[in-house]
């Protein structure tokens, strides 16, 4: 999970590890996220859109160029935006978009809901 905001990382770590019971790797920027993802090859990647340096969209594109990460679902996280911006993210091919503010206690369920939809889509193809 990558976000440059330490407060968001803190609450996401609690949510994903304590509520979701998942092993979580945190990154503070896009570059760090790419490196951690390359090392760990996670089951899912949560990327904040707006990060200094390598932002979420750039990190997403770079991850997709890495063979080991090409099929790892990526969920973008962003503060509430206009529909056209939202459409821009979904058109990239991400698994889903989670909008901030989110309920930390429901975040793992939201991740599962998105992944469930993605897997259903793949099965239907």
């Amino acid at each position, binding site marked *: 999970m990558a976000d440059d905001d330490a407060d968001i990382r803190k609450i996401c770590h609690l949510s994903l590890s304590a509520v979701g019971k998942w092993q979580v790797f945190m990154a503070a920027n896009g570059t760090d996220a790419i490196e951690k993802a390359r090392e760990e090859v996670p089951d899912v990647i949560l990327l904040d859109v707006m990060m200094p340096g390598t932002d979420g969209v750039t990190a997403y594109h770079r991850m997709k160029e890495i063979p080991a990460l090409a099929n790892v679902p990526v969920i973008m996280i962003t503060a509430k935006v206009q529909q056209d911006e939202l459409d821009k993210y979904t058109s990239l091919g991400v698994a889903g978009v989670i909008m901030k*503010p989110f309920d930390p206690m429901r975040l793992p369920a939201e991740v599962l809901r998105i992944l469930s939809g993605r897997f259903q889509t793949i099965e239907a193809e």
Partner: protein
Amino acid sequence: MTDEKKSEADVLAIDAEVEAVYQQMKRDYASTLPGKIDELERKVMDAQSYPADEKRLQTALEEVHRAKGTMGSYGFPEIAELIHSLETLLQKERAASSMKANFWKEADQQIKRIFARAKEKAAYFSDTAGGG
């Protein structure tokens, strides 16, 4: 994920210990709210002081956008809404490229009102450790 068969019902079964940690995190965050609002105000005033400097406005907008999401995620939607209205105002300012100085002048009272209200809310949440 360690358990691929985990269902939504499983992850919704939040135990009391996790809830207690979350509430403590929320209280800790609440205590930092007045400082965060002050910092946002500094960023916006900085952009306002240099109306021709696009970078300062962009910095202010990014900080405001980030704060909106984080404050809401920590369970302070009233402040997040106020910050959202500030963001909308700043976005309008960015769009009004030919009349920046005038725009700031016109928006000044609105910005002051938003910050006054946000400070009031932040102080309340800080004093009451998250609003009770």
